[in-house]
């Protein structure tokens, strides 16, 4: 309750009390509250008041999209390994068969060669290519196997798997892993930007009302959007001030 209203209400004069009643009805009702613009609601929500706004709902949607993509990245890894092991096993068997056939056809010195295809863990598979030249049909025997061995999305990858060793595959998954924290960093970055930008923009806006408050002069209150009008407004204020003495005379 303002001092003006309380004075008027305490007045013994009926007219004062009526005026007080009239002015009191100008005060906002208890539960009435204006509706905020989307911009303001977004601003308040962004600053962490717990409000939900369109802007707030949009950001997590983007973030969750990223998370879904990145979360599915590790999944193909074991499947690819399964494909690779299957392919390499088939290739090794085929190479062994080819080498045995070559050894049988060529004679004694093939014993040293026969040992190598059995050593699958080493990436000496290209060493089996010389016999593969002689047995061209053998790699093609693997093609019917690949679709059954290669599940889902990786039916196209066996072509890569022929040239890709386990190291290269792990290298690919490593790149996926590094992208995950990078995406998290982006999210964090957007959050920090979200809190930092309004402050910067607020500073840029430069509402001089604070200084005006300190100075105690209305002339220094130049609101950011009202700068063009403030001059005219204060001109009007001066004009009104000119009216005031007339009123006093009344």
């Amino acid at each position: 309750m303002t001092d003006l209203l309380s004075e008027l209400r305490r007045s013994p004069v009926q007219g004062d009390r009526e005026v007080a009643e009239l002015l009191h009805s100008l005060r906002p009702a208890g539960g009435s509250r204006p509706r905020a613009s989307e911009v303001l609601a977004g601003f308040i929500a962004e600053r962490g008041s717990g409000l939900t706004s369109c802007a707030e709902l949009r950001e997590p949607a983007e973030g969750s999209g990223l998370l879904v993509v990145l979360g599915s990245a590790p999944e193909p890894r074991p499947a690819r390994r399964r494909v690779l092991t299957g392919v390499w096993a088939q290739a090794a068997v085929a190479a062994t068969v080819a080498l045995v056939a070559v050894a049988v056809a060529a004679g004694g010195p093939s014993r040293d060669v026969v040992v190598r295809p059995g050593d699958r863990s080493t990436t000496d598979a290209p060493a089996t290519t010389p016999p593969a030249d002689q047995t061209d049909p053998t790699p093609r025997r693997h093609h019917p196997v690949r679709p059954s061995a290669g599940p889902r999305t990786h039916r196209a990858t066996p072509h890569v798997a022929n040239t890709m060793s386990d190291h290269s595959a792990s290298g690919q998954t490593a790149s996926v892993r590094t992208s995950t924290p990078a995406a998290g960093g982006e999210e964090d970055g957007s959050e920090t930007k979200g809190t930092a930008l309004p402050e910067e923009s607020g500073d840029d806006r430069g509402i001089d009302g604070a200084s005006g408050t300190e100075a105690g002069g209305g002339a220094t209150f130049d609101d950011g959007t009202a700068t063009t009008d403030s001059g005219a407004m204060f001109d009007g204020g001066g004009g009104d001030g000119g009216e005031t003495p007339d009123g006093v005379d009344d």
Partner: protein
Amino acid sequence: VDELDLLVAAARSGGGWAFGRLWEQLAPSVAAYLRGRGVRDADDVTSEVFLAAFRGIGRFQGDGVAFRSWLFTIAHHKGVDAHRRPASREVLVDVVGAGTGHGLDRDRARSAEDVAMEQIAGDRALRQLAILTDDQRAVLLLRVVADLSLAETAEVLGKPLGAVKALQHRALARLHADLGAVSPEPGGAMGRVT
């Protein structure tokens, strides 16, 4: 320490939760002030006022009372701007209960009859204020709706204190006359109110 002081201090130090609470506490008064000034999109302009205040609160220095005065200074300027531009078509959203969550219940608790009666009384008061000049109306609104002192009202309007006192006196006298009172009586409060 007043709650408004705490909220202003929290908002200045980056406490995002305080913005919603400040809106809850002060937005009704700002909207009522703008409505009394004849601003058509009072809610919309109220949002503009708070957005400007929140964005510039980093530069504000003072307590809750000073913030209230500063806020109504912005509101006064925005109200003047609003008179000079066509009505906007901003989409407004309901932020009732911001921060606390109990504002919605408070609204529901008010009956439709109460709301209607308050609306009628408010409309009648606004019609009564129409007989006043713009400055007289602004002074009374700032004194009654914004709870500002004479000095703060003078500061908001950028007028000398004596001029604001005179404007208030004349405004009350005209309302007296319009309400049927013959004239301000010597023993009345109008001559004494400061």
